[in-house]
C-alpha cells in the first residue's frame, strides 16, 4: 500500500520541477524582443529621414512607414509568422517612401533643369544678336555711323523680341508640363484633378499612401501658381445611408484640405464640400466601380486673367 503512494508523490515532485523549468524558459523566451529584421528596417528608415535630398519630400508615405516600422518592432509572442509579416510590410512601406521621395526630387530638379535650359537658350539668342550686329557692322563698314547704329539697334530689338517670345512660350510650356504632371483634366470650371485610386477605405476618411505623390504634386503646383484657388469635393460610393455618406464625403474633402493646409497652402484659397453619393463616375454594383466613386475631386480655378495659349 505504501509503495504506490510514494511513487505518486515522486511523480508529483518531478512534475512540479518540470513546470517550474518550463516557466523559467517561457520567461526567457518572452523577454521583449523585436522580430528579426526589424532593426534593419528601422535603420533604413532613419537613413531616409536624414537624407538631405529625400528626407522631407514624401511626408505622408514617411508617416505611414514610421507607423509600420513601429508596429514591426513590437515583440510578438510565439507568432513568428506575424513578426515576419510586419517586417515585410514595414520594409516595403519604407521602400515606397524612398521611391516617392526620389520621384519628387526628380520633379524638383526638373524646374532647375528648365531654368538652365532657358539660360542656355537666352545665351544662344544673345550670341546670335551679337553675331548679327557684327555682320551688319562688317557689311556696312563704309556707311555712315548713324545708319550702322540704327541697324544694330534693330537687330538687337529683333533679338530681344525673339527672346521674349521664347520666354513666353517657355512659360506656357512649363504650365502645360505642370498640368501634365498633375494628370488633371482641363474643363471650363478650371483644372479638375481626381484623387481616385484607392485613396480611401470604405467608410473611412483618412488618406491612404497612394494619395501622397499626387497630393505632393498638387502642393507644388499650388505653390507655383499662387493666384489659383481650389475647390475640394468629396464623393462616396452608395454603400450605407444617404446622410452618412454626405457626412463622410465632407470629412474626406476636409481631410484633403487639412493635408494641404498642413503643407503650407493658405486655407483662404481652399474650400471643401461633401457631395455624398449623388455624383458617381462608375456603377456602384462592382467593387472596382465603388472604388472609383470613393474619390475626391479637386477643381483648380483659373487665375483671374488667364492667358490661354494654344
Amino acid at each position, binding site marked *: 500500500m505504501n509503495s504506490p503512494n510514494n511513487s505518486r508523490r515522486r511523480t508529483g515532485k518531478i512534475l512540479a520541477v518540470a513546470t517550474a523549468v518550463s516557466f523559467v524558459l517561457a520567461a526567457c523566451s518572452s523577454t521583449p524582443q523585436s522580430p528579426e529584421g526589424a532593426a534593419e528596417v528601422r535603420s533604413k528608415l532613419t537613413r531616409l529621414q536624414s537624407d538631405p535630398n529625400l528626407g522631407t519630400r514624401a511626408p505622408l508615405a514617411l508617416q505611414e512607414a514610421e507607423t509600420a516600422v513601429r508596429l514591426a518592432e513590437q515583440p510578438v509572442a510565439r507568432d513568428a509568422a506575424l513578426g515576419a509579416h510586419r517586417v515585410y510590410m514595414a520594409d516595403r512601406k519604407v521602400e515606397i517612401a524612398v521611391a516617392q521621395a526620389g520621384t519628387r526630387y526628380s520633379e524638383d530638379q*526638373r524646374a532647375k533643369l528648365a531654368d538652365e535650359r532657358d539660360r542656355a537658350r537666352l545665351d544662344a539668342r544673345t550670341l546670335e544678336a551679337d553675331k548679327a550686329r557684327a555682320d551688319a557692322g562688317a557689311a556696312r563698314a563704309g556707311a555712315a555711323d548713324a545708319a550702322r547704329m540704327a541697324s544694330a539697334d534693330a537687330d538687337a530689338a529683333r533679338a530681344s523680341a525673339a527672346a521674349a517670345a521664347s520666354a513666353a512660350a517657355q512659360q506656357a510650356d512649363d504650365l502645360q508640363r505642370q498640368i501634365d504632371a498633375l494628370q488633371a483634366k482641363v474643363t471650363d470650371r478650371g483644372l479638375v484633378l481626381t484623387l481616385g485610386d484607392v485613396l480611401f477605405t470604405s467608410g473611412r476618411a483618412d488618406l491612404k499612401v497612394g494619395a501622397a505623390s499626387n497630393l505632393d504634386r498638387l502642393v507644388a503646383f499650388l505653390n507655383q501658381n499662387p493666384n489659383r484657388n481650389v475647390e475640394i469635393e468629396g464623393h462616396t460610393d452608395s454603400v450605407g445611408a444617404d446622410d452618412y455618406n454626405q457626412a463622410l464625403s465632407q470629412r474626406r474633402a476636409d481631410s484633403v484640405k487639412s493635408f494641404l493646409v498642413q503643407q503650407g497652402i493658405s486655407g483662404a484659397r481652399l474650400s471643401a464640400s461633401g457631395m455624398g453619393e449623388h455624383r458617381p463616375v462608375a456603377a456602384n454594383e462592382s467593387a472596382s466601380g465603388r472604388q472609383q466613386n470613393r474619390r475626391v475631386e479637386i477643381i483648380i480655378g483659373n487665375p483671374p486673367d488667364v492667358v490661354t495659349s494654344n
Partner: protein
Amino acid sequence: MNQTIRATPSRRPFIAAGLMASLTLIAACASAPPAPVSAMDAARVAITNAEKAEANRYAGAELGEARKKLAMADSAVRQESMVRAEQLAQQSRVQAELASARTAAAKAAEVNKELERGADALTEEMQRAGEST
C-alpha cells in the same frame, strides 16, 4: 427549464446528444473564418494599377513578386488558412504599390535625363555656332 430537468431519465441521453451536436456545429463555424475578400480585392486593384503604370517595364521584379504573393494568398484561401491568406494579400498589395512607386521614380528620372541631354545639346550647338564665326 425545471420541466426539462424533471424529464424521464430515458430522455436525458437525447438531450445530451443534442447539446453535443450543436456544440460541434458551433465549433465548426468558428474554425472556418471568411476569406479575406477585401484584402485580396485591394491587392488585385494595386496590381492592375501597377500594370497600367507600365510597371512591367520599369519594376518587373517587384510586379512579379506582387503577383506571386497574390497566388500564394489564393492557395492559402483554398487551404482555409485565412489569417495567412490575409497577410499574403496585404503583402501582395504593398509590393504592387512599391512597383508603382518605383515605376514613377524611374519615369521621372528618365524625363530628367532627357531634359539634361537637350540642354547639353543646346549648349554644344551654341558653342559650335560661336566657333564658326
